[in-house]
């Protein structure tokens, strides 16, 4: 171990020479890590508070306002005249669906964006959401099957779409730009399936149409929320467990692999988990426009470069959907489904990214 002595001396000398007066490199490193950790925790806790706040507000707000006390009593299982029905049976399923679908879209979206190193590679831009959506609307409208069956078909279709895009985009290896273009084409194709199925529907009502075109949490029932809740409980912790490896993929396949990451395995596990989240959320609430696409980049700007984005993106997604649903319900004379509001927010950002990507080919 003669090398270690020379190493130590060199380290001391270099630490003395380094610009930070009196600080060794180790101290500089520790300080930097503390600073990044503080920012990450502050942002995550703030997002958590925002999410809880919006959830509470969703339960309180409506034609009749209920106090936090009344809402809390309903949640504790007490019977409160009026509130028990409005809050417990109408607002709670709706708010829960907004929370869970938003979280699922946010986390699934950032998984794809991180993995493919491009914010445009979001599942709602590259047609994977459209795959789930088309399958769900097709089975509901034309086959009339149960809700569990719809979720299963939606997952299969989303996975199938992901595989199809991957295969179609791989000529001499997959290039992200080509994958995005193929995906956008796929999204257009699958959306036409949605429109077709809606045209053939017996009861062409606006409610149903809006859900499958832009996404809506209107009239959510526990029967729809429950499968999504189970999917979130299973897939989210598993995906969070992949977070570290997923972060390594940001360094590119070659470097990630030479740093000991099992690239293919990480990619496949992450895609499957993200698609499960996406498909269940889509089967429950429809493809709420641009939530998967917006959450990651917003979270990235908040937490800073290089940090894990899965949890912050889920919280951003949940907050986005709940805030957009509140705006859609109460900000205008007409009530709009949540997807119309998120769509209005997301479209300008998409244009901005396309312009920027054209110039720099930027990443998250």
């Amino acid at each position, binding site marked *: *171990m*003669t*090398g270690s002595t*020379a*190493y130590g001396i*060199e*380290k001391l000398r*270099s*630490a003395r020479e*380094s*610009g*930070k007066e009196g600080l*060794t*490199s*180790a101290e*500089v*490193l*520790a300080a*930097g*890590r503390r600073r*990044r950790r503080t920012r990450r925790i502050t942002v995550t806790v703030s997002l958590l508070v925002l999410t809880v706040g919006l959830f509470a507000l969703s339960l309180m707000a409506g034609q009749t306002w209920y106090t936090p006390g009344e809402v809390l009593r309903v949640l504790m299982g007490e019977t409160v005249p009026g509130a028990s029905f409005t809050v417990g049976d109408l607002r709670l399923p709706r708010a829960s669906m907004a929370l869970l679908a938003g979280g699922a879209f946010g986390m699934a979206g950032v998984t794809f964006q991180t993995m493919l*190193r491009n914010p445009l590679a979001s599942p709602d831009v590259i047609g994977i959401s459209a795959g789930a959506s088309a399958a769900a609307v097709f089975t509901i409208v034309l086959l009339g099957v149960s809700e569990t069956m719809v979720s299963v078909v939606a997952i299969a279709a989303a996975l199938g779409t992901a595989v199809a895009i991957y295969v179609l985009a791989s000529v*001499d*290896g997959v290039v992200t730009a080509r994958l995005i273009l193929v995906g956008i084409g796929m999204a257009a194709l699958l959306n036409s399936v949605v429109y077709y199925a809606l045209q053939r529907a017996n009861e062409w009502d606006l409610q149903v149409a809006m859900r499958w075109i832009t996404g809506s949490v209107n009239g959510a029932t526990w029967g729809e929320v429950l499968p999504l809740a189970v999917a979130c409980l299973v897939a989210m912790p598993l995906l969070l467990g992949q977070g570290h490896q997923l*972060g*390594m993929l*940001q*360094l*590119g*396949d*070659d*470097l990630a*692999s*030479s*740093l*000991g*990451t*099992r*690239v293919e395995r990480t990619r496949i596990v992450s895609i499957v988990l993200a698609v499960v989240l996406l498909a269940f959320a889509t089967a429950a609430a429809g493809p709420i426009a641009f939530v998967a696409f917006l959450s990651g980049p917003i979270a*990235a700007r908040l937490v*800073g*470069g*290089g940090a894990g984005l899965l949890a912050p993106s889920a919280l951003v997604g949940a907050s986005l959907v709940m805030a957009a649903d509140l705006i859609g319900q109460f900000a205008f004379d007409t009530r709009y489904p949540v997807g119309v509001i998120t769509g209005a927010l997301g479209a300008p950002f998409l244009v901005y990214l396309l312009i920027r990507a054209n110039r720099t080919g*930027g*990443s*998250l």
Partner: protein
Amino acid sequence: MTTAHVLKAEHLTLGYGDRLVVDDLDLVVPAGLVTVIVGANASGKSTLLKALARLLAPKSGRVVLDGDDLQRTSSKEVAKVLGLLPQSPIAPDGIEVSDLVARGRNPHRGLLSRWTPEDEAAVATALDQTGTTELADRCLDELSGGQRQRVWIALALAQQTDLLLLDEPTTFLDISHQVDVLDLLTDLNATRGTTIVMVLHDLNLAARYADHLIAMADGRIHSQGSPSEVITPEMVREVYGLESRVIPDPLSGQPLVLPIGRHRVTMGA
């Protein structure tokens, strides 16, 4: 000092799709030395380097590290012994230098194990050795090309592998930064005994810094040995299709290649 690891290729054939890039190649990487691979564009240098680092599965033949077939060893085990710095590595937007370099510790971390003092020391040493300590808090995006390349090398150093493979570590750098990087790698080889294998484009820098030189042409090893054995007008003609004269470098005694093009050569070649 480091233990001597044996990295070799046996009947290695590599390619993408139907296209063969490296054909039935045998190679033993000399332990503890600086090996430089040179060759014309598309001669298979980078492809060979990728296969040596387990990033590309051979079509036939195998790469063997310490007696084990590389493809049968887990990427994490390989990553503790062998590091590779790709030609143009990418980083997430807005990542800070110290955060990036810390990722070099990935192979040494268990599933749930926390950041250890050894990790901290490895990163600190890597920053010191590459002179990037002052940049630790900066974002990678803000740095110049030369600074950025030093940061990437710091990441590879933080990995603390006994074998380090680098694909054109001097591209996009001006001459002084090229020399900086090569001096840094030579220091690393001298102080830690790290075995270094790198692809270089500049023949004269290759001759100056290599202990062992490999010239590749059409997916095969054209010649290998000490720079003075390998660098000859014949090799330059056969590998690059270029006429040249080779003289001793007055500063190092290593061979120096003077290319002969169609213009501007006034002395009889």
